[in-house]
């Protein structure tokens, strides 16, 4: 969850030649989650994770769905500063996890179009609690990938002998360098 403070309304007072802020600051909470993504897809009827550029309307629509603080209207959101946008951008792109997948086999083949329902399906398959729909989306994806990687029935998790050998050489070389040892 992200908490940002939106500045108050700003006017230019010609009498004093100064900018005056009114209405006070507003603190709001946002979440980049499956719940927000699902609402967005319900409204725009297209996959959010398509990789295609979002229009200004679609972008604003998503920010509105991200807001979880009740009573926040579009007028308040329209006062967001550049710093507010940067904070949202950093939050959306953050990994939100310490888990890494550098050694997992790379998936090959055509990638599936991922929609909210597909993600909900993965949650059901891997018994991920419903409350995770409010976790950071990247955290949820990490959880799904971990479940997938730990699934012994998934043939894609098996490395070929050549892949495994190459991974081992790569990791060993890295460790030899870090520990400054020959073996």
């Amino acid at each position, binding site marked *: 969850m992200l908490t940002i403070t939106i500045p108050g309304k700003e006017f230019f007072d010609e009498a004093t030649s100064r900018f005056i802020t009114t209405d006070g600051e507003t603190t709001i909470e946002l979440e980049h989650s499956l719940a927000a993504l699902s609402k967005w897809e319900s409204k725009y009827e297209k996959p959010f994770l398509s990789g295609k550029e979002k229009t200004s309307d679609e972008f604003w629509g998503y920010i509105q769905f991200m807001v979880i603080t009740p009573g926040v209207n579009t007028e308040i959101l329209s006062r967001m500063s550049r710093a507010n946008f940067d904070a949202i951008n950093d939050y959306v792109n953050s990994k939100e996890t*310490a*888990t*890494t*997948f*550098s*050694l*997992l*086999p790379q998936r090959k083949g055509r990638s599936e179009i991922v929609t909210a329902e597909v993600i909900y399906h993965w949650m059901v398959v891997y018994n991920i609690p419903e409350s995770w729909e409010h976790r950071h989306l990247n955290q949820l994806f990490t959880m799904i*990938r*971990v479940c997938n*990687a*730990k699934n*012994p029935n998934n043939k894609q*998790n*098996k*490395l070929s*002998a*050549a892949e*495994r*050998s*190459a*991974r*081992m*050489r790569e*990791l*060993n070389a890295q*460790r*030899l360098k870090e*520990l400054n*040892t*020959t*073996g």
Partner: protein
Amino acid sequence: MTTLVWDASGQKVLETGLDRGVLYLSDGRAVPWNGLTSVDPKPVGFTTQPLFFEGIKYNEIVVVGDWSASLKAYTYPEEFMEVEGVIAIDNGLYVAGQDFDLFGLSYRTSIATDLNPNAGYKIHILTNLTAIPGNSSHKSSSPDPNVVEFEWTITAIPQQIAGFRPTAELIFDTTMSTPEFIAEFEAILYGSDSTSARLPYLEELVNFADAWS
């Protein structure tokens, strides 16, 4: 006559950590293996065959199986790739998929007793080994991939030693020996100012020990 005594002081002996790993390649080179973390023997195929006469068991034949072990390491010398069939050629290029090579290995395990935590050590000597990489593809999703250990299953071809069954393993318990012999023995395995480290035939080591006694 004496009565048996249990739990006497100094009788509780255990083997602890592993160190001084040495990899011996088939061409005679010996390289230290600092990242060796465990060698866990897992013999396979050892069974007993019962013999019956008129419905009564009168004997058992022990079928001796193969020596095998699980080898784990945090790092391994680049030379170890050769035994896995990966050959280094010029300019950092490696050719994979070549024949696996036999190798030897020695390592120490510490011996501790209830009276002395540093009672001595054993040197384990293994020869004619083949290493098959373990299939640990699922370990890579751990929170920190850097703690994943490399793992191999190693098997051995026993060597002939006159007067004994063929074997691929010798164990030298230094607590049962003299400092002079230990020094001479280690000079063979680890090298000295005048000699290079090497792994001789096991029979040579046995004969070397016999000559000292």
